[in-house]
């Protein structure tokens, strides 16, 4: 394995007595698509939040692109080339779809005092933002207020912003949930295209069919611990996973109707 783009070591996050993440380690190679699986409440989103700087780990180490990043704030990680989406979508609701992407394009300017006074609605910026919207299939809706979009489009908008920011690594938190079949296929193609550009993708996905097809490797979490790691085929045949994940899911589905 070449030098990993991301390495987490013995990561912990405790909320009071709750050990949401309890000693998780894994590595991601550049250009890899790594899936994180696990039942509800396993600690997947908390892991993402630590990697992207939203939470400071209770203990453990995060190395991103050769640099210790645990404890850095989210805007610093973004500046290092880490883009992410949110499981609960967070659009800039009163701005248009295009403006949402332009906000992300400001990443090149927000860190330098001399640059934040330049105009953001320039031709070049708009063209570059439209290219990104085209990639995720939102170009037609560029002028629409983001707050008025249905969930599927909001997920794509999140990906568009993450694409702009994530020069090196993109974290996708259940970006497929709530999408229709045709949209899922499109998004799979998009994620493969992202990898083609040399960007590493880390994704949380409940849809087993999607993650098995898309991911190079999968890490399975349960109760804040890593219970399995390997290629999709290995994971599929791992009994413990089937017990923890598939079994629970079947029970949930039965309970939920």
């Amino acid at each position, binding site marked *: 394995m070449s030098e990993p783009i991301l390495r987490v070591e013995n990561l912990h996050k405790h909320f009071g007595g709750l050990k949401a993440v309890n000693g998780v380690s894994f590595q991601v190679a550049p250009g890899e698509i790594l899936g994180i699986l696990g039942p509800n409440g396993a600690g997947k989103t908390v892991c993402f939040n630590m990697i992207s*700087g939203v939470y400071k780990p209770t203990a453990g180490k995060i190395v991103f692109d050769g640099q210790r990043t645990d404890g850095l*704030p989210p805007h610093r990680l973004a500046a290092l080339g880490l883009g992410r989406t949110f499981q609960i979508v967070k659009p*800039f*609701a009163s701005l248009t779809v295009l*403006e949402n992407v332009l*906000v992300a394009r400001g990443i090149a300017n927000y860190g330098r005092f001399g640059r*934040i006074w330049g*105009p*953001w609605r320039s031709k070049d910026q708009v063209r570059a933002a439209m290219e990104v919207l085209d990639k995720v299939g939102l170009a037609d809706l560029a002028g629409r207020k983001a707050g008025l979009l249905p969930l599927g489009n909001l997920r794509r908008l999140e990906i568009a912003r993450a694409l702009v920011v994530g020069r090196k690594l993109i974290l996708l938190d259940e970006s497929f949930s709530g999408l229709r079949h045709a949209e899922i296929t499109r998004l799979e193609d998009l994620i493969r295209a992202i990898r083609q550009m040399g960007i590493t993708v880390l994704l949380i996905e409940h849809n087993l069919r999607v993650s098995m097809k898309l991911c190079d490797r999968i890490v399975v979490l349960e109760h804040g611990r890593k219970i399995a790691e390997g290629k999709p085929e290995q994971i599929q045949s791992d009994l413990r996973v089937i017990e923890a994940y598939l079994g629970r899911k079947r029970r949930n589905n039965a309970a939920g109707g």
Partner: protein
Amino acid sequence: MSGYLITIATIIVINAIVVCGLNVIVGYAGQISLGHAAFFGIGAYSAALLATKAGLSFWAALPLVVTISSVVGLLLGLPSLRVKDDFLAITTIGINFIVEAVFLYIPFFGGALGIGGIPRICLFGLRLKGFSFFLLCLAFLVLVMTACWWFTRCWAGLACFALREDEEAAASVGISPVRFKLLAFVAGTAMAGLGGALYAHYMRFISASDFSFPVSITLLSMLVLGGMGKLWAPLLGAVILGALPEIFRPLVEYRILFYTAILLLMIRFQPSGLLGDESLARKVLAKVVPGGGR
């Protein structure tokens, strides 16, 4: 124009300048402030002291006044920007009361007597009063509104909009919440300070109660009425709330009650203000004047 009209118009323009500052903080960056009068007061008091005690002219003092207002804004803003929403509202009210108390109880600031004998502003050897002073204020308003206009078009302004909409999402695209909130706070308090300096030289006598909490409510009412985050909202709000009590004389006694009622009614029924994108006023205007809803 009669002297009476000029007086009202001058106060309206000064208020509009101060509300522009409030618009940067509340409308653009989404940080609620219920203590804006404190910074208005800090500008007025520093201008008054620099003129009466240090003998500086308005023009020599102006850069100092704006710097003092924004530095105090920065210092008071630092702790308050670590809290959010209702805590921020309470904190800014607290700032207003503390600043007013400092003016009122510390003898250096004139105590209960306030500061009098503030000289008029001179420009090209001309002592500005009445209409010429009004024109000076108008020129400053144009300057401030141009700055606001530019702010909405530069990355700093866009970053503030993003923070207003969703702080976590903004941070995820590289926007430092603290840095850009402080920037908005500093810009907003600088404008309040400028308004304060003009106010001091216009009234020529100021006292702590000119900058009390009800004044903050009035300023916020003007902004909410006009439409938070809209470029022309401060002027529109200042004109309406400045002119109404003059038109309905009996209302003057109940001014604050009236402003508070407007604030609550607007927030309840027209939260985006008169200039808001989907406001009633715009719809009516669109019917009356073709293309007027734009």
